[in-house]
C-alpha cells in the first residue's frame, strides 16, 4: 500500500490540476474581456526597459494590439472610446520603437480611419511613417485617401496621391487618379477605385473581411448613384425618394445596405447610408442628407 501511495497522490494531484487549469483559463478569459484596454508604458521608458530588444518589443506590442482588437471583434463587442485611445497610444509606442515597421501603419489605416472614425489620428501616424519610409508609396496614398474619403479635403488628397504616384512601385493609375480627384470630388465611384486598391494590398483576414463588406456596400451605393445621375439627366429633377429609381426603371431593385442602414442622398450627390458603413459610430458626414428613401 505504501508503495502505491505516492502514485495515488500524484494521480489525485494531476486530476485536481486539470480541473483548476480549466477554471483558471476560463477566469482569465473573463478577466481579459472585462478589463478596460489598460495602460501602455510610454515609449521613452519602454525603449530603456527593452534592454536592446526594441525591435522585438515592437513586434510583441503589435501582436498585442492585433490580439486585443481581434478578441473584441471576435466576441462581437464594439470598441469604446477608451479602447481606441489604448490602440492609438499602443500604435504610437510601436512606431516609436521601430518607426520603419510597416504593419502598424497598415493597421492604423484599416482601423483608426475606418472603424474608429478617427482619420486625423490615422493621418498623424501615417505622416510619422512617411518621415522614415520615404520610398513607400502606400503611406502618402493612405493619407490621400483619408483626406479624400473621410475629411473631404480633395485638394490635400490630390497632393498626397500625386506624391504617392511619384514613388517607385506605385500603380500607374495613381497619376490620373490624383489629377481627377480635385474635379470629381465626392463621388462614391472614386472611393470604389481606392477601396479596390486597398483590398488588393491586404492579406490580414480581419481587415479583408471588413474591406470586402465595405466594398460591397460601396458597389451598391455606386449602382444607386449611377442610376440617380441618369434619372437627373433624363428627368431634369431629383427623385423624391430613392424607390422612384426602381419604379421609373432606372434600377432593377434597391439593394440592401450590408451594414443594415437606409440609403440617403447627400447634398453633394453622393449616395450614403444611415449606417454610415460602420459598426461603430464614426464622425458624422460633413453634409446633411437632402433626400431619403
Amino acid at each position, binding site marked *: 500500500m505504501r508503495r502505491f501511495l505516492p502514485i495515488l497522490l500524484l494521480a489525485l494531484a494531476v486530476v485536481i490540476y486539470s480541473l483548476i487549469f480549466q477554471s483558471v483559463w476560463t477566469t482569465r478569459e473573463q478577466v481579459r474581456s472585462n478589463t478596460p484596454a489598460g495602460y501602455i508604458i510610454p515609449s*521613452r521608458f519602454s525603449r*530603456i526597459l527593452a534592454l536592446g*530588444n*526594441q525591435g522585438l518589443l515592437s*513586434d510583441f506590442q*503589435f501582436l498585442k494590439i492585433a490580439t486585443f482588437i481581434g478578441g473584441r471583434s471576435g466576441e462581437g463587442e464594439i470598441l469604446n472610446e477608451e479602447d481606441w485611445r489604448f490602440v492609438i497610444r499602443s500604435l504610437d509606442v510601436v512606431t516609436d520603437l521601430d518607426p*520603419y515597421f510597416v504593419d502598424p501603419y497598415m493597421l492604423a489605416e484599416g482601423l483608426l480611419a475606418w472603424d474608429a472614425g478617427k482619420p486625423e489620428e490615422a493621418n498623424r501616424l501615417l505622416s510619422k511613417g512617411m518621415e522614415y519610409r520615404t520610398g513607400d508609396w502606400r503611406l502618402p496614398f493612405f493619407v490621400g485617401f483619408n483626406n479624400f474619403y473621410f475629411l473631404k479635403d480633395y485638394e490635400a488628397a490630390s497632393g498626397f496621391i500625386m506624391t504617392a504616384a511619384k514613388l517607385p512601385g506605385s500603380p500607374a493609375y495613381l497619376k490620373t487618379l490624383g489629377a481627377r480627384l480635385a474635379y470629381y470630388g465626392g463621388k462614391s465611384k472614386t472611393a470604389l477605385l481606392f477601396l479596390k486598391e486597398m483590398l488588393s494590398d491586404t492579406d490580414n483576414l480581419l481587415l479583408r473581411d471588413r474591406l470586402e463588406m465595405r466594398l460591397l456596400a460601396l458597389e451598391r451605393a455606386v449602382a444607386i448613384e449611377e442610376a440617380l445621375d441618369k434619372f437627373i439627366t433624363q428627368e431634369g429633377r431629383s427623385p423624391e425618394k430613392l424607390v422612384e429609381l426602381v419604379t421609373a426603371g432606372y434600377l432593377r431593385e434597391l439593394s440592401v445596405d450590408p451594414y443594415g442602414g437606409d440609403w440617403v442622398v447627400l447634398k453633394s450627390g453622393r449616395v450614403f447610408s444611415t449606417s454610415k458603413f460602420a459598426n461603430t459610430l464614426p464622425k458624422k458626414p460633413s453634409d446633411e442628407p437632402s433626400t431619403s428613401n
Partner: protein
Amino acid sequence: MRCILSLAMITFKEGIRNRSLFGIALLALLLFGLNITVAGFFMRDIGKVTVDMNLSALSFAGLLLVFFVGVNLMAKDIDRKTIHLVLSKPISRAQYIWGKYLGIQFFVSASLLLLFVCSCLTVWFLLYLYPNYFIGFSWPIFFVACFFVLVKFSVLTAIVVFFSAITSSSLITLIFSLSAYVAGVSIEEVVFYMKSEFAAQEKIISESLTTFIDIVSYLLPNFAVFDFTLEAAHGLAITSQRLFLSFGYGAIYIFILLLLASFIFSRREFN
C-alpha cells in the same frame, strides 16, 4: 604567446565539454522554430519580424553562454582554488588573464557561429516561404548585424574576466557583470532621455544626477553601439565609418579592460 594560446585551448575545450551548452543550443533552436511559427501572424513586415527574432535569439543565447559557461570557466579556478596549480606553471598572471579571455572568446565565437548557421537557415526558410514580404531584406547587412552580436559578447566576456580578476566569488562576478550588461544596454537611452525635452520638464532630475550619468556613460560600454537590428530588419544602409567606429570602440574597450584586469590580477593575493 604559446602559453596564452595553450591556456586558451584548454579553456575552450573545457567550455565545449560543459553540459549547459546543449541546453542553450536547444533553447536557441526552439526560438528559431518559434520564429517560423510566429512570422505568419504578421501582415506584411515578416522580414523585419524574422530578423528581430533571430538577432534577439542570438543575443539571448550569447548572454546565457557568457553568463553560465563563461563566468564558470573564469571564476571556477579561483573558486575551487585550482588557480594555485595553474600559476605554479611557468605562466605569468597577465598571461593567465589573456589566455582565459581568448579561450572564452573562442568558445563563445564557436557556439555563436553554430547558432548563426541555424539562424541563417531559419531566415532562408522564411525567405523561401514568404518571398514577397522580405522587400528591404539584405543578407550582407544581416551578416554585419550578426557579427556585431559577437562583438557585443566579446566586450561582455572582457567584463566577466575583469570582474573575475578583482572578486573572489563567481556569484559576485555574475551579479556585477549582469548589472554592467543591463546598465550598458540601456545607458544610451538614459543619456539621450536626460538630454531630451521631456527630461527638461521634470524637476526631479538634478545637476548632480546628470553628472553622475555622464560619468557612468564613460565607464560602462554602450552596448547600443553594436546594435544593428534596425538596419538589418529594414535593409537600411550602414556607413563604413559607423562600422569602423563601432568595431574600434569595442576593441579598445576590451583592450583597456584586459590591461586593467591583468594589472590588478598580478597584484592580487590568494588565500
